[in-house]
């Protein structure tokens, strides 16, 4: 054939190998890393997962949600419920968290999809508040007080003793390693899954809907179904991640689980300074966020003040985020999704 389609690029190739290497390294990391690093990695990976899903919603699906904390909280509470009320082991209970978030997403989407733009954003926020207030009435899980995971549940968690034996660690450290591996798996699955989705024809449909909904309908894309699809996926993933985070925290309260700053605002911050609408953006963003936090969090309110100002400045000078700035200049994409036609007569084209 004279022409063929390809998505791979040199940068993408290299990035692919580097990514595989990094994943392998990450898997064996607990062998030589201290607990501090493992915990930092857990924080980075879970925030990354939340950021990737929010980016999927807002950056690809055009759905600017301010209510993702509903799914974090729902996932976390469902996990606690499964452990405390039904005696399920915390690890499988994480799945229950994902499913619960998914179930919550159905009525949420039914309602929120009637709204547009800013209305949608506020609507999702209100729904998250409603969920928080309802969960705060759940007396068996402590109501507004919150509750802690019982020692024996966290102590005998699946796999903990195996990890303990493997590395000769104390129980608490073994739990960290286990949670870290789960976070790693979730992050890899999330990024891999989103990347796969975007390279698939669904990716085309998503971009089409985001660029121009009316035109997308006119070429046969079911815009409504695409929105449902990404919303549900994001809710499920966010719920899983929320459950995992709270397995690690072992303590929950409605204010903590449905915290709009932590689970939505910081996540938006991460995506936007990194670069919305790219897979690389949230990765870069979470690293910057983590660096800022470890360097300056001890300055208390000045740190938060600076975080606010940084958000404003980045939005004003680099609306497409730092990765956007970089890839506009260099044309480099680590996760290329563009389908390029290669063959005679085709100018290499700007990317």
């Amino acid at each position, binding site marked *: 054939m004279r022409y063929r389609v390809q998505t791979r690029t040199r940068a993408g190739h290299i990035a692919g190998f580097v990514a595989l290497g990094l994943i392998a390294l990450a898997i064996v990391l607990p062998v030589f890393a*201290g*607990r*501090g690093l493992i*915990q930092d990695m857990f*924080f980075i990976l879970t925030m990354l997962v939340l950021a990737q899903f929010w980016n999927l919603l807002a950056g690809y699906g055009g759905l600017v949600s301010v209510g993702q904390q509903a799914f974090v909280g729902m996932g976390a509470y469902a996990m606690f419920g499964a*452990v*405390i*009320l039904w005696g399920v082991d915390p690890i499988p209970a994480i799945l229950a968290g994902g499913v619960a978030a998914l179930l919550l997403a159905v009525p949420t989407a039914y309602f929120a999809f009637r709204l547009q733009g800013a209305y949608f954003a506020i609507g999702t926020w209100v729904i998250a508040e409603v969920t928080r*207030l309802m969960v*705060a*009435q759940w*007396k*068996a899980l*402590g*109501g*507004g*007080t*919150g*509750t*802690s*995971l*019982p*020692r024996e*549940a*966290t102590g005998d968690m699946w796999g903990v003793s195996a990890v303990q034996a493997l590395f000769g660690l*104390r*129980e*608490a450290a073994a*739990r960290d390693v286990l949670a870290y591996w789960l976070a790693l798996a979730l992050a890899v699955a999330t990024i891999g899954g989103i990347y796969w989705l975007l390279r698939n024809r669904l990716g085309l449909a998503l971009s089409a809907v985001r660029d121009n909904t009316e035109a997308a309908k006119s070429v046969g894309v079911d815009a409504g179904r695409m929105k449902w699809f990404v919303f549900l996926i994001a809710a499920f993933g966010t719920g899983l991640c929320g459950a995992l985070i709270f397995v690690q*925290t*072992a*303590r929950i*309260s409605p*204010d*903590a689980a449905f*915290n709009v*700053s*932590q689970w939505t605002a910081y996540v938006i911050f991460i995506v936007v300074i990194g670069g919305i609408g790219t897979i690389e953006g949230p990765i870069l963003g979470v690293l910057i966020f983590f660096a800022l936090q470890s360097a300056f*969090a*001890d300055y*208390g*309110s000045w740190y*938060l003040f600076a975080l606010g100002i940084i958000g404003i400045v980045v939005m004003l000078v680099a609306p497409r985020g730092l990765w956007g700035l970089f890839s506009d200049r260099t044309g480099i994409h680590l996760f290329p999704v563009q389908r390029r036609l290669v063959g005679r007569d085709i100018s290499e084209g700007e990317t």
Partner: protein
Amino acid sequence: APALAQGAKIRLGYVSPQSGPLAGFAESDAYNIKAFLASEAGANFEVIVKDSQSNPNRAAEVAKELIIDDEINLMLVASTPENTNPVATTCEAEGMPVISTAAPWQPWFIGQQGNPGDPASWKPFDFAFHYFWGLEDVIAVFLNMWNQLDTNKSIGGLFPNDADGNAWGDPNVGVGPGFAAAGYTLNDPGRYQNLTDDFTAQINAFKAANAQIVTGVVIPPDFTTFWNQAKQQGFAPKAATVAKAILFPQSVEALGEAGHNLSSEVWWSNTHPFASSLTGQSAADLAAGFTAETGRPWTQPIGFIHSLFQMATNVMGRVDDAADPEAVAAAIAATDMDTIVGKVAFNGAGLPPFAAANVCKTPLVGGQWRRKADGTFDLVVVDNQTAPMIPTGGVMEALA
């Protein structure tokens, strides 16, 4: 030799809500820590302070950081269940000894149990220790104050849906049964959310029950809203005895005239007859020192924050290896000392068996805010039947 004398510095972790809505509890941190480090015993210690930003998630996170990255030997924490509970839970899970204070013991102990509704499932902790008073003390203090007045013994209760409110308002283990035993009836319309803008429903319920006393555990802005609305809507009880809302003088000053003769529990004051083993200061000295250094009036948490460091010094004086968590925990359990907030010993005195190993109670009395001519307020102890060693400064007065 005890860990104290070994030369290497002992690392204390301290999680404190230095920013955010709970920051009032942390305002004496700098003052107390400076005094501690300057003391003779303090020279053996290093204190690593982390700001929880009044956020329970963050509190748990920084507690972990302290344990893992800073390799502390002992954790100290104070300032409401929102701050103490996540830190204590984390320490318990990590096997790190923790001394906690400034939260009633029920929300602290029961609030950390998996299923707070099922006493059979409650378990003691191996590493977490807490000293403060409990609801039984508050019940006794409040009753003693009200008994000084002539009322119809009908009480209106304001309990939010948070850790304190749920503990206080619990129909079985909260304050209600205690009041009932003394012949008082508690009218509790139900849990409300913090930062509620309207208390008409509660006021109507209290009016309907002809309540002459109001009690509860309310955050400051909500109490102001409630109290102003009560006056606006013609509800005038003889006593208003609330916890939390009028803890800090600024909150009372914010009420102006309406703050006069509001009453509350007093856990520490500048008239407490205790002294610091670290600096030799009396309670009055400690309070005055704070005012001199910051220009701000003394507050109740000052004594308790100070006592945390007394505890740490005492405990580390009794262990050989500060890095052995089990040994440190055992030393905490064996504590028997006098602090600036009273005697601390985990001997189970006055506690139900399930909490005996982890909790110690400190004295509690009742006080009333008296407005002075210049618009500032004095906290006057008006009842000391629960702790006679603490002197009173007046008697309980009915609200005008």
